[in-house]
């Protein structure tokens, strides 16, 4: 099985896992879900680390550095703001 085919298998199966889990998330949590998912899409940071591994000033390393910066905004900002939101959800105090 070629690398591409393995990738396609992984992609399709992950989509199904995603559909299964996310349909169960209640509407109350849709905004945190979205910002959390957003942070997860910052996984491209892993890719950008590969792209920026050379020290010299080349197009690839500058673009890689930019990619790291953008992806890190996404990751750090996304997880922090999600946590900030989830902190606010609380149960009824009187119960």
């Amino acid at each position, binding site marked *: 099985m070629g690398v591409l085919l393995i990738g396609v298998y992984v992609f399709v199966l992950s989509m199904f896992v995603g559909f299964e889990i996310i349909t169960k998330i209640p*509407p109350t949590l849709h905004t945190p879900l*979205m910002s959390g998912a957003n*942070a997860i899409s*910052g996984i491209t940071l892993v890719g950008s680390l590969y792209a*920026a591994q050379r020290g010299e000033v080349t197009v690839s390393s500058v673009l890689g550095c930019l*990619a790291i910066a*953008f992806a890190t905004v996404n990751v750090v900002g996304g997880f922090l703001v999600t946590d900030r939101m989830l902190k606010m959800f609380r149960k009824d105090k009187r119960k």
Partner: protein
Amino acid sequence: MTDFIQGVLVPILYLLSAVLFIFGLKGLTRVGTARRGNTMAAGAMLIAIIGTLLDLGFVDYRWIVAGLVVGGAIGAIAAVRVEMTSMPEMVALFNGCGGIASALVAISVLWLDVVEKPEVAGTVASNLGGPAAFTTFLSILIGTLTFSGSLVAFLKLNGTLPGRPIMLPGRHALNLLLLVGSIAAGIAMAFFAVDLGTIELLCLGISGASLALGVLLVIPIGGADMPVVISLLNSYSGLAAAATGFVLNNNLLIISGALVGASGLILTQIMCKAMNRTLLNVLVGGFGVDEGTAVATGEYGVVRSAGAEEAALILEAAESVIFVPGYGLAVAQAQHTVKELADRLTKHGASVKYAIHPVAGRMPGHMNVLLAEADVPYEQLVEMDVINPEFKSTDVVIIVGANDVVNPAAEKSPGSPIYGMPVLEVWNAASTLMIKRSLSPGFAGIKNELFEYPNNMMVFGDAKQILQELNTELKDLLGA
């Protein structure tokens, strides 16, 4: 040692990371475990980064550290400072960041492995392999499009660009041309171009075309449809990451990207259903143009209205009250005033709930976050399907800043443009109080038949001011 790290340890760390992402999302299915779920996902990200650094071994860290520090600082400051009402703008911006990062990685790899390689020969496909060459193009296309589309969504949400749809003549033809052109250029870049100059030019052309495409796709979409757009762009940012995973043959990127892609697609679907629109209909755009305004106003028959004093008397007698908050509530910054009123009613012995329509805010679930910020316990926030049967046995419904989502026409007038849209059946309650500035229509631009119902009272005025007056009146009636 290096063999062990790269061949065994790193793949295991990546697998661990993928599993933790899935558990993290699973945590988000319940309020009680949601925070832990988010932390778990953050931990998964950290493991992924550590794994990658191990995989790289000792390299030059200057660019890496610079990017991490700058991005981390910007992200942290933004996350701490953002107002909850601006969450949609924030998510749009973050989406854009994720999208452009994926595209930049793909371009960077193209340069690193082809353009900057000494003595390079042949096509991109012969250097990277066919699949990686083609997904490089896909990653650039989806990533850049997500970036510019998100920026336009951001500008529309924060009011820099008008929320109304901007319809350019011939835009469908132009969009098609840009898309087909990009695909052609992408195939040429991946499989046919051998000259480095041509490859660079094609890459730039694709980036430019997809930037334009992102702008053109979002600009004709009306402000009320932004929840759909943000959800869809969210999905795209995931798909862009997955495409980058194919470029790098990295399964972790593919898995995480697919999870996010699925999540965005589901939310898109939920939002479309809540607005009774098809995705195609939203994307074609133009909905929410003010053409209905003139027709809608001045057409009302008998509309009963009341002042705060009379409304307070109705509330005094109520044993069960349901609030229907809409985005107007957030605009008026009246969440805390609502909560205050709700507390007063609860203290008086009434049961209080909030009916949340799926499109009550500017993004999925937005209203829930805004009310949670105002300290409303989440058990009181009830979703549409659950609360609809309860209106029958409810004394008073207070509608603040919502309009189309309580329009009976959606269920009772087959000719109405919103017929079939799921709405909150507030008219079944003994009485409804509609707090609103005037009889003007909502985003759908149509008449709200509820205004003429005999059990409805209009309370005209600014949402926050009226709620404050209600609070004062009730204080007088009920004591402290």
